[in-house]
């Protein structure tokens, strides 16, 4: 029996991880992406390898997903991760009060944490705000966004997946009976157009998912929700630093190479393709970073950037749950051969891919078990060396 051909639209975290999963399950995979790998939301992610601590109190489902995937990623792709853990620090009474809930919730989500006195915390990280009241260690980390996606892509390629970067989908091919049979694409490096047929089309375009589903006359309930990130010119800590409070703007500062990156905010945007930097948000981020690490106030800014997150649901801003969802369009709009995976966060990319691949396999009547939990990824550089 010939291998089923899966066409994946989008080479961000979801697309590359799904390509890896499906390739391992014996599929012929073609990934099409209108730019280079991770050039959309995925590239501009904060880079936090979530311990789940941030979601433990209000969104336990998310938190458990995070800690589980955190441990898996540390195992399968350690070479793109700074695994030095993180701290949650309390700066006022309200933070302290939240702290009690925090401890209980983390324990309920099996997130390992340890309480530290301010002296202990300052010994670990001398640049912390010396007025901190209490700190907790949790297994956060930092990852390299592009190289994480590229590692999945390289491993998928090794298992036969093909990547067509700089290829944009112009339309979906339909058979007139409500089934998607492939895509029509344009090679943006040469302006050549051609058709590609497949047994299933997976829409992994994240915040742009609605644009693709519209090509089939369908829609998905995602709200592109951008946020700002600000990078500073100095590595002030070795660990991720989180504010011990309900998820709010600018409550995380991460070390990455020789920088610190603070984020983020949350607002709605109309134009998904370009989100301008909002001056007020920039100022807020610098303030919030300085709350946690006062020394950053005098450090030069290195980069400022925005990208739209795909949040699912009908609410706005932070109240939307950050879980992911795989939409089988046969169920949603009676369109076969077409699924959309969206929502989620970077840390859960492998789990999103597993769920998507399970859905795809179920639709095609294929019974192959997921192996991505145990399969180590190969060097991201092999994406270029393999052909």
């Amino acid at each position, binding site marked *: 029996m010939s291998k089923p051909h899966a066409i994946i639209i989008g080479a961000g975290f979801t697309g590359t991880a799904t390509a890896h999963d499906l390739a391992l399950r014996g599929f012929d995979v073609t990934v099409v992406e209108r730019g280079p*790998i*991770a050039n959309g939301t995925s590239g501009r992610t904060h880079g936090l390898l979530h311990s789940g601590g941030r979601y433990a109190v209000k969104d336990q489902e998310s938190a458990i997903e995070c800690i589980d995937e955190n441990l898996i990623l540390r195992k399968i792709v350690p070479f793109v991760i700074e695994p030095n853990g993180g701290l949650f620090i309390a700066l006022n009474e309200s933070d302290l009060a939240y702290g009690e809930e925090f401890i209980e919730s983390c324990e309920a989500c099996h997130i390992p944490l340890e309480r530290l006195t301010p002296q202990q915390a300052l010994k670990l990280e001398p640049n912390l705000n010396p007025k901190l009241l209490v700190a907790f260690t949790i297994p956060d980390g930092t990852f390299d966004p592009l190289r994480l996606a590229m590692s999945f892509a390289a491993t998928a390629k090794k298992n036969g997946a093909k990547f067509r970067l*700089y290829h944009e989908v112009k339309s979906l091919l339909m058979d007139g009976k409500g089934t998607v049979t492939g895509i029509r694409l344009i090679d943006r490096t040469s302006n050549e157009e051609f058709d590609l047929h497949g047994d299933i089309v997976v829409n992994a375009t994240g915040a742009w998912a609605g644009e693709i589903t519209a090509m089939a006359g369908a829609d998905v309930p995602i709200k592109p929700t951008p946020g700002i990130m600000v990078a500073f010119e*100095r590595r002030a800590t070795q660990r991720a630093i989180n504010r011990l409070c309900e998820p709010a703007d600018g409550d995380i500062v991460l*070390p990455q190479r020789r*920088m610190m990156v603070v984020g983020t905010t949350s607002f709605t945007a109309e134009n998904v393709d*370009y989100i301008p930097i909002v001056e007020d948000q920039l100022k807020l981020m610098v303030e919030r970073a300085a709350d946690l690490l006062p020394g950053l106030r005098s450090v030069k800014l290195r*980069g400022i950037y925005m990208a739209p997150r795909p949040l699912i649901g009908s609410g706005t801003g932070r109240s939307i749950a950050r879980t992911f969802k795989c939409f089988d369009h046969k169920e949603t709009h009676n369109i076969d051969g077409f699924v959309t995976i969206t929502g989620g966060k970077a840390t859960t990319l492998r789990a999103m891919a597993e769920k998507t691949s399970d859905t795809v396999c179920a639709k095609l009547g294929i019974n192959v078990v997921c192996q991505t939990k145990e399969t180590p990824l190969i060097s991201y550089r*092999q994406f270029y*060396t393999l052909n």
Partner: protein
Amino acid sequence: MAEKWNITLKIYRQKQGEKAHYQEIKMDVNPDENVIDLVERAWAFHDRTLTFAHACHHSTCGACGMRVNDREKLTCITSVRSVVSNGGTLKVEPLRNFPVVSDLVVDMGELYRRMDLVGHQPVNSDRAEAIQPEFRPAGPAEPGEDFIRLSDCIECGLCMSACPVFSSTPDYLGPAVLAGAHQAGPEKNPSLLNLVDSATGVWRCHSVFECTAVCPSNVDPGWRIMELRRKVVGDRIKTLFNPRKTAQVSK
């Protein structure tokens, strides 16, 4: 309120099989924003056929290297103000010494292949990574406490584009690769030592130091190449008195 300038963006355009030409776009810009923002706006609002490489927008991925007014820059951290003045022209071209795929996109495959060849470590001990004396890693240096962090080198290729020797001699390993070899630690790997101790390795460098001048990420390839020469010469002297069994060139 943010300052507003008006500049002309002059972009190198070339699709496969076509002749290269420049496209000029007049743009209103904030002088404190970065060049990549302009290129992205050019794509989003002026010409959707423009292709360019980018991912992280904060100098960790190395994808957005381009030549800006003839100089290699990492466009996500290069402010408009630093490369052009109000009313001026901002020329943006792809990196040199790599095959142009389309417009501003080059094929970086050879660089990645060579970084793998020399075994540069994408993550490394913080203390081992920051061996230049000016950089003091944050956090206590407790004995035995080792933090792992992403390597300084982001494989952006700016140094490879700027090196005149690599320009005329594609076989020369190149500054990024030799710096990668230095980071990998050839003392532990005799075959790596052989690879760099060659006419296409450390001895091909002509001390231009343009690589160090354009590196956006504190790698200092020029310095690393000279350090590598010391290691190579030191090793040669050692093996003079104590020859190694066989020099294996692994690939």
